[in-house]
């Protein structure tokens, strides 16, 4: 059991550390900053206190969750297997005594942890900026609820996009189409159709 945990931990660390580096990290971190920049921009126009806070909170539903979180998780998840298959670094793991399901779980956990490092601040920092810029104070359940929603979305998107990266070379494109068409349009349909989306 200790050996299995050691193996899982090593793959998770490898995945996390490999995800958070280089140009990809800079690009995704910049993308994660967008909601904060928008709130800072709104704050600079000196709106009413409750308007500022409502804007920051409302931004989560229209931008942070469906776009920022989705894109960050997509980029990090599809890279886990697709890049390693293409440059053959996956060979270093596949010939080891770790089982294939453990490799998948380790990579999932690593990419999820990497995504949360970016997604959680992208969710909470705009609220903090709103409050520090004179917005009304949120009740404690607002940041907790939004952070929980972002984490759940990352968990769901992460599993789906990791699978996409495993089975398709066009995972990034398929993921973007899925995220921007399916996840955006299906919730607009009447009845129980919105249940078919991950974000629901």
């Amino acid at each position, binding site marked *: 059991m200790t050996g299995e945990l050691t*193996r899982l931990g090593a793959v998770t660390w490898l995945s996390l550390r490999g995800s958070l580096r280089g140009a990809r990290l800079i690009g995704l971190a910049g993308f994660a900053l967008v909601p904060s920049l928008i709130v800072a921009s709104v704050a600079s126009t000196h709106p009413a206190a409750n308007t500022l806070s409502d804007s920051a909170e409302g931004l989560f539903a229209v931008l942070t969750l469906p776009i920022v979180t989705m894109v960050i998780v997509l980029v990090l998840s599809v890279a886990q297997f697709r890049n390693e298959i293409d*440059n053959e670094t996956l*060979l270093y793991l596949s*010939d*080891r005594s770790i089982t294939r399901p453990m490799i998948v779980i380790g990579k999932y956990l690593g990419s999820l942890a990497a995504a949360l490092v970016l997604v959680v601040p992208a969710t909470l920092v705009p609220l903090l900026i709103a409050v520090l810029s004179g917005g009304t104070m949120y009740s404690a359940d607002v940041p907790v609820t939004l952070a929980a929603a972002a984490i759940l979305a990352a968990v769901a998107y992460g599993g789906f996009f990791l699978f996409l990266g495993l089975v398709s070379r066009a995972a990034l494109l398929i993921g973007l189409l899925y995220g921007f068409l399916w996840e955006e349009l299906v919730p607009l349909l009447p009845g129980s159709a919105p249940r078919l989306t991950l974000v629901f």
Partner: protein
Amino acid sequence: MTGVVDADSVTKRYGEVLGLNRFTASFPSGITGLVGPNGAGKSTLFRLLAGQLRSDAGSLTLLGFPAWGQGEFRRRVGYCPEHAALFDWMTGFNFVTTLLRVDGFSRANAQERAGRAIETVGLTEARDRRLKAYSKGMRQRIKLAQCIAHDPELILLDEPLNGVDPVGRATLSALMRQLSTTGHHLIVSSHVLYEVERLTGQIVMISHGQAIAQGDLHRIRDLIDSHPHLVDLETPDPRGLARLLGAWDHVVSIEFAGPEKLRVLTRSPEAFYAALPALVVTENLAVRSVHSADDNLDAVFRYLAGGGR
């Protein structure tokens, strides 16, 4: 078959392309060379053995275990891939240590083994440098270090000398020989035949995904006799010599390869070399040199692969 690796009619397809085509061979203990040109199927075989690919048909076992299998037996196998990139953001030491951790070794044990393996391949001074700063030869050596760090019984080396400088080649070759003397079994692939010849006399030849010959190198050399054999002769009178040689029934063709040079293809090199001295003496011919273009491993391979000419 009871080798360290046994393949029985193994087939692997990539869509329409056959990577391996009913490949059948048994790799015995010690060092075995897997020899074939680029694209022959060597890397496909290694990837099947490493458990990255699954064969479409046939049976493939290593150390008695199915190649697609997983579990503790994998600790008894080390694999050094040919083209694989490295985790360039890591140091050499972290790279080897992390892969040992993936194999379930404790941190302290992994660090101790990594240090030892890196020392074995002669990279101790560079162990804390990032892999992206490694030269091609150093990258080959660190790949070898991760391959031997867990002290595997069976070591799979895919073109290990490719891109390594002459000094590095000598070092790695000596290391491979040393590993074989300490109870390790090695399968070493190469498309450069003389490299393998220097390591072992035990080879498996692969072409177009099939094992075309296997066994002792000298026995394989004997197979030449059943194939046309090329001989280059230098003489001031090529036309006269060609007229005489053309009368021999085992001579398949004669080519004027230069003003004073003949290239003769014979079905029976033994008969050719036996009769030539007598012909030279009786006809008073001036033959300045006789050179068998086939007297090396390359020629053996070309004959067996059937694509040499």
